[in-house]
């Protein structure tokens, strides 16, 4: 119990320290960047300390929730397995599915936009795809595309398709009336208006979808592996090791997923910064 209280104390102290850090006027760019990195790290560290404290303080059974220290132990001792799983799930299924899913969501949005007929006919049906639940779709995909990663990629495609579709459709209406009128005065064709005005204006929405999808894709691929897979992959490992009561391994795998997902998201966010630099939310509003 006292372990837990100590952890809480640590948390409060770290929080205060963070508050102090972010209120400082950074003297230089590097210092500002450093603060930007240190603050979330401290926050994360306090979460871990709280976790460790809670698990030890309340004597939570190991098979329910292992402490971070045990997970770390397991992590560094299982790097080869973790790497193999990562390659199978992330580098193959997630990336392929993400690219194809976002791409097809985007293309269908354009298609829908291009033809008012389809807009009225296809969009309501697009909503249909939105919630095809993984657990329903995954077995079907295994049936169609086999046990290996293509079936997982297919699940990822289905999961990422809809957020992209909705956001792109909404984004394509984001250009203001006057901006559009300008294009009309040039008698710009559909595609010119699209590429020179409406897509740039839709940028913030599209990146929204890309960000949401970066985490959805990972979840989708992992869950899809519950429904048949060769005996490698992050989802395979998680479900197998739960059954074997190796919960520390499960969390080690989750840690890898979290790291990969965060980096993935971070990369998308960086690209967003560069591509939609003009939007008030990035210019600093």
């Amino acid at each position, binding site marked *: 119990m006292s372990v837990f209280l100590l952890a809480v104390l640590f948390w409060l102290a770290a929080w205060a320290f963070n508050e102090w850090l972010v209120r400082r006027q950074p003297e230089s760019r590097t210092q500002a960047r450093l603060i930007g990195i240190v603050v979330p790290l401290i926050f994360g560290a306090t979460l871990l300390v709280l976790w460790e404290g809670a698990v030890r303080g309340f004597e939570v059974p190991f*098979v329910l929730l292992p402490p971070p220290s045990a997970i770390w132990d397991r992590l560094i001792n299982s790097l080869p397995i973790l790497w193999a799983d990562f390659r199978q799930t992330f580098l193959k299924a997630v990336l392929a599915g993400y690219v194809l899913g976002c791409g097809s969501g985007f293309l269908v949005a354009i298609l829908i936009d291009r033809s008012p007929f389809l807009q009225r006919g296809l969009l309501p049906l697009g909503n249909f795809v939105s919630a095809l639940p993984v657990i329903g779709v995954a077995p079907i995909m295994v049936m169609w595309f086999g*046990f290996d990663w293509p079936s997982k990629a297919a699940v990822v495609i289905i999961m990422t398709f809809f957020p992209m579709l909705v956001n792109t459709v909404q984004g394509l209406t984001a250009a203001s009336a006057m901006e559009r009128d300008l294009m009309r005065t040039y008698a710009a064709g559909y595609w010119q208006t699209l590429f020179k005005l409406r897509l740039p204006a839709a940028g913030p929405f599209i990146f929204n979808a890309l960000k949401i999808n970066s985490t959805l894709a990972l979840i989708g691929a992992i869950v899809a592996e519950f429904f048949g897979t060769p005996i490698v992959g992050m989802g395979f490992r998680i479900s197998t090791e739960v*059954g074997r009561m190796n919960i520390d391994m499960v969390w080690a795998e989750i840690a890898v997923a979290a790291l990969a997902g965060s980096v993935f998201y971070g990369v998308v966010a960086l690209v967003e910064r560069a591509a939609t630099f003009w939007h008030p939310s990035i210019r600093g509003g």
Partner: protein
Amino acid sequence: ADKLTLQLKWVTQAQFAGYYVAQDKGFYEEEDLDVEIKPGGPDIAPPQVLAGGGADVIIDWMPAALATREKGVALVNVAQPFKSSGMMLVCRKETGIESPEDFKGKTLGVWFFGNEYPFLSWMSHLGLPTDGGEEGVTVLKQGFNVDPLIQKQADCISTMTYNEYWQVIDAGFEPDDLVVFKYEDQGVATLEDGIYVLEDNLKDDAFVDRLTRFVRASMKGWKWAEENPDEAAMIVLDNDASGAQTEKHQKRMMGEIAKLTAGSNGALDPADYERTVKTLLEGGSDPVITKEPEGAWTHMITDKALQ
């Protein structure tokens, strides 16, 4: 009435008919018990539920239970209604597999989630690596159903005598199209569907008393089910909240289950236990358990219950 929660290993089906019968026929009530039966499902690990306090008693397979015991969750087998194993590996005949020697280079579907231990032990018995190399077998994590065999994605798949095998047959296969390897026949059978509790709880007399009554009533249920398989199946059907089970399938399953429970009065046969442990210990380079377990079973409950 005393409350007691039972966590099943899998969804509501005739595999657990004894417990549903005991509840439905009032056997638990007669013992002054108020039993809640929690169906399981894929990814529900009964030992975890037990450790988390979500259940007092669980149904599990012995290999998984022993492995869990090594992980620090002290499971103890207090009763064993299933005498024999229902596990089989079913292969399509056209793959040319006739005996275990032919497995080399083939693709086999296996259940994981703690159900893979019997299979792994068997393979190490045969000296077949399971890493997908030339010299060994390629293993697929098989989903819930028999599709991999039907779709020819796997050469053989795991089945239970009482369930998946019949699904293969229902899918249009003739028994002649199939080659079946029963774990029992291969000498690698391990005990299935036992009743387990936490070791610490056995020190509590009140709990032991409740447990005794539970086992007694449950065995009564099982014996009733063995004698009235069709009615038992209907009871199971009534308890299936998903509304997905069919009468034909459950009746057939009950028939097969009765063959597995036959010969058990509920008390664990130490010989069966020894055989299971031996099989598991022989798991080659990566055995399921590393040392002979101690205190993993007891007759304390069954002795009292079956007086």
